[in-house]
């Protein structure tokens, strides 16, 4: 039986594909949807990472030192799940454009 890796393919470096397929990994600028943004109260944050795990856009980075949370504002949709799920209420949603 032929193994998949032994099967010949006609794949030159650049080639034409007929029919529908997606092949360029892109991201939507979902940050532009945001009406509110999460703001972290640094002293209250215990760096547990729950916000990060539940963030639909995976845009929260938890730092071990310094500022506990970093947000990738390019993708944060401002849904507020992070704030809602924070066990210490260390996150609050503030109107986009306000705060720091």
């Amino acid at each position, binding site marked *: 039986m032929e193994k998949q890796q032994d099967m010949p393919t006609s794949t030159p470096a650049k080639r034409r594909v007929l029919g*529908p397929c997606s092949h360029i990994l892109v991201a939507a600028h979902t940050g532009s949807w945001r009406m509110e943004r999460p703001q972290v109260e640094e002293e209250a944050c215990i760096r547990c990472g729950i916000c990060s795990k539940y963030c639909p856009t995976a845009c929260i980075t938890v730092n071990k030192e310094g500022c506990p949370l970093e947000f990738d504002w390019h993708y944060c949709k401002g849904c507020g799940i992070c704030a809602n799920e924070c066990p210490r209420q260390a996150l609050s949603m503030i109107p986009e454009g306000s705060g720091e």
Partner: protein
Amino acid sequence: MMAIKMFDGNGAAVEAIRLARPGVIAAYPITPQSSIAEHLADAVAEGAIKAEYVRVESEHSAMSISIGAQLTGVRVATATASVGLALMHEVCGVAAGCRVPIVMPVVNRSLVAPWSLWCDHSDTMAERDTGWLQFYASTVQEILDLQLCAYRISEHEDVMIPSMVCFDGFYLSHSMQRVDTPSDEEAWDFVKPYVKKNMYLDTKDVMFINDLCPTVEHTEMKYQQMMGFKRAAQVSDEIFAEYEKRFGRKLKQVEAYRLEDAEVAVVTIGSMSGTGKYVVEQLREKGIKAGLLRICMFRPFPDQKIHEALKNIPVIGVIDRSCGLGGAQGPVCSEVKAAMYGENSKIYGYIGGIAGRDISDGSFRKIFDELLGIKEGKSETVSTWFDVEENAMNIREVETNANV
């Protein structure tokens, strides 16, 4: 080494599949295709075909599985008929649009309603614009020949369009005939191993197939398919020529039979063609210049070849084995007329042989009689529904209690 073997139409389809060495088989049994599904299962069980046999729960899944499997880089086999093809319809479009070159025997059987087990072309004609190549066999031998060629045509990198190899239920599917069959090696040398190209599912070469295509690209995708059909017309000529060179049997997109000097001709498709030729011979013996044009490849429609073959024939009858309900004509006739645009030929559509009604030598004699009547100026119309009974509107007369 060619050998004479005995096959019925379904057996010839299975033999062609065996010779093409599929890796995955998914077929759902349906009359009159059932023996294809059964024999494929047998062949896998006996080791004659080394494939994964997926015993599917419907034709819809049969085609879905075929698409999924072939996109991983294996040749697949499936087959269907009638309502099974109708159930597949949605996914047939996916195979075509995703350029998955599946080759599928379709045993022609009428669509419901009324229920029927018997042959007509309403099933495949309903699929004629789905984006599949369509070949119609006229003998059991040709089922094998066309199917072997279909693999090459469909899988050609400029074509990449799936094929239906259509043949008439019972008239061919269950007709035991001698078939000149190439050896396994010869056939394999012709069909060649399946090479995955264009789109495929491979974790080492990532693409996501059949995602939403925005309007700004959709027309272009269809244009690509249209170009595939254009190339299929040329490629099939090349492949047919290669097949003839290798195996000595001539296949043609359209077969002209005694048309050179014909004054009347019929256009046929499928198993009725042999009977038509028989009647042409009878008429020729009487000195009547009759001829026949058989359409073997219906998609892409060989309009130029048809035009060329028929342009000098004054009176032509086109026989559809499906009703083309609501259409100006049956589907074959509509296409032939379009192909003949600008010519002075008188072209008449005939509809008959529905749901297994026999198209006999007598039927052809009647049709030729009418066409000759036109030719000689004795009449101006033909009996389009040539085999319908006179009491068609009254075949059910019932006592009813309802106040209607």
